[in-house]
């Protein structure tokens, strides 16, 4: 198999995980019971790594809408919106998203990944410039690769470095498109969006795209994400997001006030050349969006749970991300330690994620958790207790009763 020889060293590592019977990249649930519980190899597990921020996947109203739409309009659209037509629900969802974000236009994609592919490849053309935060998600890097723009990256969350990049391009023709995220999915840190917006304003022909995938439904008075929380929505030209986190479904979107926005429908290849979302997903997403807007209590519960887990793990002596958020990652000393820790937690009935470089920043090996509004405080406390036991057993944190260190062993700069 000469085609696969280039993957030899990766394949060896993967095989090792399989042989150890604990491969975090090949988990298959027997069944899922609720937003917070599933069955894995016959064992009931607590889910602490599903990005199901508002816990809406089993909401009775969301399910009812999905069922009704499926019965009425069928299981799939069997085609793309350009070639085979839109259903009423697609337009309705686009209008609902635009209205929610107070924008003129909305466009729905079949996944969040495709939303970034589609938007970034279409917005920045051959003579334009894409300027990405260095810690951007793979979908942002891939979107940049799909298009023809010149792509450079600036230091993660550094307004000064963004300014440097824009300054160097000052006399270079072409539009400049800055791309940042609301909450970064690996360490759960937020972007200094107010400062980024100020830098953007100081240069002509410069646009700002914010990916609110992990911050929609999480941040802001109305859950519109980091731009709302930072009070800079007017400076954000395009908001990209997903239906597969807070909204509990699958799909992606972009909303904007940009004049002529609808032309994107016939130039954005990841929108044009793929099947549109099935009616059941569209109807469920519309209902989930409605719930997100009408049940602010979900956001409060989510924030309380996030703070509870973050503070609990930090107090035990784990090195956590720079700020509390629904993504709570603990830094592991090595990938091997991350695998062992992950397997230890799973064995005890707690499901989390392992994240490794190059998907993680600064070469960090991470044990990643994400909390849901659906978690009870007792579930969060149980998870913390399991982290404590596993951490002490593996010597990652001080023994019970010992005075915790003033400085974590591994520090992460914001």
């Amino acid at each position, binding site marked *: 198999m000469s085609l696969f020889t280039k993957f030899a060293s990766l394949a060896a590592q993967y095989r090792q995980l399989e042989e150890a019977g604990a491969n975090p990249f090949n988990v298959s649930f027997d069944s899922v019971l609720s937003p917070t519980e599933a069955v894995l190899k016959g064992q009931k597990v607590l889910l602490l790594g599903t990005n199901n921020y508002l816990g809406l996947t089993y909401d009775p109203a969301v399910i009812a809408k999905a069922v009704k739409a499926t019965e009425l309009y069928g299981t799939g659209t069997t085609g793309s919106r350009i070639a085979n037509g839109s259903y009423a629900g697609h337009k309705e969802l686009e209008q609902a998203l635009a209205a929610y974000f107070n924008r003129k236009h909305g466009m729905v994609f079949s996944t969040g990944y495709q939303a970034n592919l589609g938007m970034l490849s279409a917005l920045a053309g051959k003579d334009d410039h894409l300027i990405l935060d*260095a810690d951007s998600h793979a979908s942002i890097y891939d979107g*940049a*690769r799909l298009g023809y723009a*010149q*792509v*450079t*990256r600036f*230091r993660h969350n550094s307004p000064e470095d963004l300014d*440097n*990049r824009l300054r*160097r*391009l000052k006399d270079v023709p072409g539009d400049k498109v800055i791309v940042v995220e609301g909450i970064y999915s690996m360490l759960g840190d937020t972007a200094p969006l107010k400062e980024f917006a100020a830098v953007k304003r100081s240069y002509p022909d410069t646009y700002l795209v914010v990916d609110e995938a992990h911050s929609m439904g999480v941040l802001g008075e109305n859950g519109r994400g980091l731009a709302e929380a930072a009070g800079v929505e007017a400076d954000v030209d395009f908001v990209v997001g997903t239906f597969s986190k807070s909204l509990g479904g699958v799909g992606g979107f972009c909303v904007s006030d940009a004049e002529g926005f609808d032309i994107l429908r016939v130039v954005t290849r990841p929108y044009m050349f793929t099947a549109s979302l099935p009616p059941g997903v569209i109807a469920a997403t519309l209902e989930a969006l409605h719930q997100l807007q009408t049940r602010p209590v979900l956001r409060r519960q989510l924030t309380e749970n996030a703070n509870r887990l973050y503070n609990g793990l930090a107090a035990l002596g784990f090195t956590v991300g720079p700020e509390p958020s629904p993504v709570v990652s603990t830094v592991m000393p090595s990938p091997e330690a991350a695998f062992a820790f992950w397997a230890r937690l799973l064995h005890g009935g707690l499901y989390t994620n392992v994240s490794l*470089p*190059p998907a993680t*920043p*600064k*070469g960090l090996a991470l044990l990643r958790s994400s909390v849901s509004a659906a978690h009870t405080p007792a579930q969060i406390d149980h998870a913390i207790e399991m982290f404590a036991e596993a951490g002490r057993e593996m010597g990652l944190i001080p023994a019970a009763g010992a005075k915790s260190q003033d400085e974590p062993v591994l520090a992460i700069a914001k």
Partner: protein
Amino acid sequence: MVGDIREIIFETLRSSLPKPVEITEKTHIVEDLGLDSVAVMDFVMEIEDRLDISVPLDKIAEIETVGDLIAAMQNLKAGS
């Protein structure tokens, strides 16, 4: 300046490696130094700061050896 760029690259490369490795212009950045794609981009960022240039990602993707890197930086600096 040409010699300076070469020196800056060698210096930055040495200081960003976990342990000392002999580096020549023929050194292959990924294979010989064991840097992954993100580590390469991070290391290029250090050089960008030192030289006050921006290196497009497609240029970074073309770079295989330290010699390629030096040549690319010299071209970009000359054009800036």
